[in-house]
């Protein structure tokens, strides 16, 4: 199974500014001070091998959209944030004119998780089948509302794809095209749902827009059970712990620290920090990642946990 991240930012899309690019260039020049490069290749190799990710790359700015490639001809994706536009281009290119079947799993319908759908190309292709799964009663209403006047010029009825909305229930596993899927209720304004996907002995948990209060034993046990022994957990790490339990308490998001703690309790193999705070620079996200890796190291028991940070374009092979 391959996981492909099309959008990893929380709340609202962001883009690098001219000042951000200038800052990265200045940092690279300082790091290269005194060196001479005989060719573009030498300079490229230096950048690749010697400079931090936050200087040579960007974590990206699209909101939540994560694809799971299972080997099945159908597509599986979580959320329709602004990353869904690029995901749609990928589907259209790969299908080369053949209509696609896309299974969409919705964590919830806050705007940053549905805003990419009006720009999702396959929705405009006759013969395409879209199955949109979710646990909210207002799932279909939310998709229709954002494509109603005066919000968007193309109405939902004008979409050419066959679109089906499928209501799921928390804690009730079901199977779709060989993939076992279990939704889990999470703490978020208006509720959100995580999804555990299992296929061929591998398991992935997509858990975004979820606040965790580890002192609440029953909730913690439920989430640990949901994460238990997963190969990969994609986790809402929007804030620092101090923010998440002070000024941003009850805002419905979590932290890198709680991600490490929950994944250690559940013996998860790989934690991926996700739903990055839009106000955070690439350097700030990189620091949050290093902090989480260091916390894991400090508190490691018998079980080692790998910690990464998602970025737009990241692919993880399981």
């Amino acid at each position, binding site marked *: 199974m391959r996981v492909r991240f099309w959008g990893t930012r929380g709340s609202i899309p962001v883009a690098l500014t001219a000042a951000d690019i200038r800052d990265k260039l200045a940092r690279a020049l300082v790091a290269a001070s005194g060196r001479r490069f005989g060719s573009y290749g030498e300079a490229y190799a230096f950048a690749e091998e010697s400079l931090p990710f936050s200087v040579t790359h960007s974590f990206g700015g699209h909101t939540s959209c994560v694809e799971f490639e299972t080997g099945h001809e159908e597509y599986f994706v979580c959320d329709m944030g602004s990353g869904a536009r690029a995901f749609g281009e990928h589907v259209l290119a790969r299908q080369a004119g053949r209509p696609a079947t896309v299974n969409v799993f919705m964590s919830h319908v806050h705007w940053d998780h549905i805003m990419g759908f009006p720009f999702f190309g396959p929705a405009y292709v006759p013969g395409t089948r879209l199955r949109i799964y979710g646990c909210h009663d207002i799932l279909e209403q939310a998709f229709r509302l954002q494509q109603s006047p005066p919000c968007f010029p193309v109405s939902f009825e004008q979409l050419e794809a066959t679109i089906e909305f499928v209501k799921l229930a928390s804690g009730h596993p079901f199977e779709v095209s060989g993939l076992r899927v279990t939704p889990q209720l999470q703490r978020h304004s208006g509720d959100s749902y995580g999804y555990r996907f299992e296929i061929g002995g591998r398991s992935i948990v997509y858990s975004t827009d979820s606040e965790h209060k580890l002192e609440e*034993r029953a909730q913690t046990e439920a989430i640990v059970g949901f994460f238990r022994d997963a190969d990969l957990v994609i986790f809402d790490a929007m804030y620092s712990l101090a923010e998440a339990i002070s000024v941003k308490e009850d805002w419905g998001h979590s932290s890198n620290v709680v991600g490490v703690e929950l994944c250690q309790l559940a013996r998860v193999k790989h934690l991926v920090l996700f739903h990055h705070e839009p106000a955070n620079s690439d350097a700030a996200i990189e620091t949050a990642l290093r902090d989480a890796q260091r916390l894991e190291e400090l508190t490691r028991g018998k079980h080692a946990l790998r910690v990464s940070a998602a970025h737009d374009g990241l692919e993880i092979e399981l």
Partner: protein
Amino acid sequence: MPLSHRSYGTARVVSPRGRLDHDNCEAFQRDLAVQLDECSREGAALVLDMSGLEYVSSAGLRCLMIAAKQAAARASRIVVASAQPVVAEILQISRFNLVLPVFGTTREALASVSPQAVEAYDRG
């Protein structure tokens, strides 16, 4: 978790020991609230001497946050001191050092509270 304390002038030094996590944070929260009540009545600041604390989890840090809010509501003060290296690093990683005043030693913490407190500490 037993919470021993010593008073130095206008400050009370409270010393948690062992590990503070989701298993014992409720009891710690209750004990700390009692200490905070007494400090409030005495008009004393509360210094948390972390030298005996081996580990603190997010649930434990939340107890400190609640205590800090309670202290602020009563115009009282709570500061942290003498954390072991692992706990000091956890405070930094969680950004708690931006929420609560953190001092390297108990003496420095007392000095931040009042001259009388640090004088009492120096006298032993």
